């Protein structure tokens, strides 16, 4: 047993922890959990805990259903929303096959593989997500909890109290918050996490979504990360700020360039732009995701980048003097209902491809892309992101890049699952149709 595992065992004993929850994530990004007693912990560390993988979306087929959840002792954390006299702790798990080899369908494994490549290339990869979501009075129907707008400070507002409680819970778990505020739509809120290495951030996003829901539920409120719950409201994004470091040095920054971007930074953006459409089925994985992307507001519909352009797919925030280490880019496609492990693995790998393949950075888009006509956009070479999950699936299916990053297991399963989702939607008669056609046809 290593010292980290010893640390966990002693802490469990000292703090009187009764249950340890083992967490892992299915391919669609849903958090899965089972609880073990402290007596089982030692066994879990040495051999892993067996479970039936065939019940998990995107895991095993029937004939190879036995899997092992091996807890990562570094992620041991007491959960702040359980009663203090009977503390509950959690650990994220790596999923192993019965022979002890890593299971390629485990999203955490997909991200680790991508991070290993970055380390080989001499980079460490940092990310900071901005997570948007809605508070609703009802679980089944969307009834916004408040009527605020962007940055509104509303007195006696139940939602801001929830947000504060959530931030306390997050900080108690070491998930640090940089900003939080009311977002544009009624009931919509945003919490921005501070940057950390991508594996920690992916774990944090999983924890975050649960914390938001748990804290809301204590007040009888439902929190939802659905990308676009109502046509006339802005959708919920997960704008993701990323940067590469070489040791202590920010690899994106170059003071001598008028954009402030180094050759590495430019290559990274070029790679991300080149592969963004193929990744779309993962960054925006639901039928509903494309309702957000199609609606304008601040959602990116087109593949372009800009420094001051809030409609661009990739924004390059200005670097303040003396803050060179904060040089970063903001990728604005993902929504907060994505699988963060897969999304971060793709964002990283697309950028690395751009650097290694010397991709050329297209010119910066300075106008609001939504205001241009499609002819004007074509003239400057700006392509749209996929318009629907169906378009995205077609690009995803053909993409050698995505298949390599996700691995064939995840790529194939994801494709099948998303085709099923699209086919179910294709035959579904929507309110749009009945409202529009029934009276007149």
């Amino acid at each position: 047993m290593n010292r980290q595992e010893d640390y966990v065992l002693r802490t469990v004993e000292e703090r009187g922890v009764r249950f340890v929850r083992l967490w892992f994530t299915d391919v669609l990004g849903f958090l899965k959990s089972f609880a073990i007693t402290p007596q089982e912990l030692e066994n879990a560390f040495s051999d892993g805990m067996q479970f039936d993988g065939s019940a998990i979306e995107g895991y095993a087929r029937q004939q190879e259903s036995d899997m092992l959840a091996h807890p990562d002792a570094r992620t041991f954390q007491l959960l702040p929303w359980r009663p203090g006299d009977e503390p509950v702790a959690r650990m994220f798990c790596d999923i192993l096959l019965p022979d002890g080899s890593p299971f390629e369908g485990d999203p955490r494994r997909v991200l680790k593989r991508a991070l290993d490549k970055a380390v080989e290339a001499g980079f460490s990869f940092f990310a900071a997500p901005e997570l948007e979501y809605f508070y609703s009075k009802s679980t089944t129907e969307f009834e916004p909890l408040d009527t605020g707008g962007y940055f509104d400070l509303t007195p006696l507002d139940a939602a801001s109290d929830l947000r504060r409680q959530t931030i306390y819970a997050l900080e108690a778990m070491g998930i640090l918050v940089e900003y939080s505020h009311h977002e544009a739509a009624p009931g919509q809120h945003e919490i921005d996490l501070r940057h950390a290495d991508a594996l920690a951030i992916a774990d944090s996003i999983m924890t975050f979504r649960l914390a938001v829901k748990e804290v809301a539920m204590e007040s009888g409120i439902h929190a939802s990360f659905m990308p676009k719950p109502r046509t006339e409201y802005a959708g919920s994004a997960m704008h993701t700020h990323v940067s590469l470091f070489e040791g202590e040095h920010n690899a994106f920054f170059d003071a001598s360039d008028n954009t402030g971007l180094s050759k590495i930074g430019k290559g990274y953006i070029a790679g991300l732009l080149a592969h963004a459409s193929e990744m779309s089925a993962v960054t925006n994985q639901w039928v509903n995701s494309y309702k957000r992307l199609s609606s304008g507001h601040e959602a990116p519909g087109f593949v372009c980048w800009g420094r001051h352009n809030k409609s661009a797919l990739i924004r390059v925030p200005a670097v303040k003097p003396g803050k060179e280490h904060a040089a970063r880019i903001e990728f604005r496609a993902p929504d907060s209902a994505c699988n963060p492990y897969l999304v971060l693995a793709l964002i990283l790998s697309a950028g690395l491809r751009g650097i290694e393949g010397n991709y050329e950075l297209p010119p910066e888009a300075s106008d609001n892309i939504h205001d241009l006509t499609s002819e004007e956009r074509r003239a400057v070479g700006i392509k749209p992101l996929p318009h629907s999950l169906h378009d995205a699936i077609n690009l995803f299916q053909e993409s050698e890049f995505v298949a390599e990053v996700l691995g064939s297991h995840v790529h194939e399963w994801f494709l099948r699952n998303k085709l099923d989702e699209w086919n179910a939607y294709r035959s579904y008669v929507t309110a749009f149709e009945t409202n529009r056609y029934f009276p007149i046809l």
Partner: protein
Amino acid sequence: MDPLLIYSPALQPDLLPTIQEHGYEFTIVSSVEEASVKQPPDGWSGAIISTLDNKETAYELCRFLRETTVEAPIQPLLIIVKPETIKELEVRDNLFDEFLVESQIRIELAARLRHRFWHTGRGTHPDLIEYGDLILNLETYQARIRDRSLDLTYMEYELLKFFSTRPGKVFTREILLSRVWGYDYYGGARTVDVHVRRLRAKLGEEYASYITTVRSVGYRFGTSKWGM
């Protein structure tokens, strides 16, 4: 453990066996120059300086240890004095942590060393580390700050332990990464910033300042004795 610095070569013959018996490592020096040359990479864990043979050199050495290593004041610093020189200590209170009077010195030395190292955690029985309101129990891995348990992850605990056993000393990110993490970590050197921020958040507002950022260098736990 890192060695104790011992002066002088002519230290009472029964003292060295006492120090050895209790498992402390040490290096004997005969001058300030030698102390400076032989300093271990991580600093001395403490010092025992005898004024019995050569008072001038002894005090010079104390001053050197206290003043030239301001960012990491050496602790504990014990001096050995003759009964008749106790009075002289009044004007030298800043130069030592503890003094021993020549007589009954064996038992007293062992007890004082144990007590002093109990505070710094760098000795042979580092069970508890205390700094201000912070207590780390190295046996149970528990950290408490004024009766509040800190829910730390393993790396946060290790970082806090590293810091609190070396109060006042400045560390670069690279040093912290190699000493605390000790293996390739996805985050690289910048991960230190992330963990320091988390630790500060968990220490809470009142105690966040235990870890200070030293601009363009790294981090320091606690303040140096000289208020820097």
